[in-house]
């Protein structure tokens, strides 16, 4: 059982990494939304897919 902490660390880092990337993507969506709002849409647009 002595190697448990490495196991825990590995899985934790993987999940942190994936969630971190998701947060980054969410940030990109927010930035794009802001930019969308600042421009008058010439035609009807669907919202962002996410």
């Amino acid at each position: 059982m002595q190697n448990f902490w490495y196991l825990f660390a590995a899985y934790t880092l993987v999940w942190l990494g994936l969630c971190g990337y998701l947060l980054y993507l969410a940030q990109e969506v927010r930035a794009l939304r802001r930019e969308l709002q600042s421009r008058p849409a010439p035609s009807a647009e669907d919202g962002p897919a996410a």
Partner: protein
Amino acid sequence: MAQTLSRPTASARAPGGGLALFTTLAGAAGAVTMTLALYGIFVLAPTERTQGVVQRVFYIHVPLAWTAYLAFGVVFVGSLLYLLRRRRRWDVLARSSAEVGVVLTTLVIVSGSLWGKAVWGTWWTWDARLTSTLVLWFIYVAYLMLRAYVGDPDRAARYSAVLGIVGFLDIPIIHMSVIWWRTLHPEPVVLRSEGPALPPEMLWVLLMSLVAMTCLYLSLLGLKLGIETLREDLRARRSPPAGQ
């Protein structure tokens, strides 16, 4: 998957229903399969005799690697199709998958390093798989850097498509050369993670984790595709579109 690669909409407009549906489905499937996989990884899978519990890293390390290669395969296909057809959507596919792929590869290296530390005692070791993965990481980081440093988006798309093709086709050669190189300096202790053959319980858990990770990749890709397609849309609006 077929939905994303040949979307019914002919223009580069906001992806709308198709992509959103795909992403949601992939995400939901990922959540379900990942839950099952985690149960399998921590409860069902037997503990390996030599390495103890830490061997369970295998069940996330290998699927991460598999999906990373899948991601770069998608980069290759997107790059090829972009150069052949010159439709923006292929470039969007390539660069989205490249970014997700770099994230996945980073996680492969991190998990591999921790596993190696537990089993071999060092944070880094030049074993064949880790080394090849590191080289792979560098290639696709170069892809992202290339996109960042080239000003004109058209040129960026072309150049990175070239790199996407060259890089992917290089992978088997890199593998071969690294494996040959490795056999000159065998590890002091060679611990085979899978043993002579994977016992069926381990195999099933691995497969479940593989499916879960693939769904995860697809949902991340879907998200990124949506973002990038929107970005293309905005860019097209800023400068009047000169066709595709």
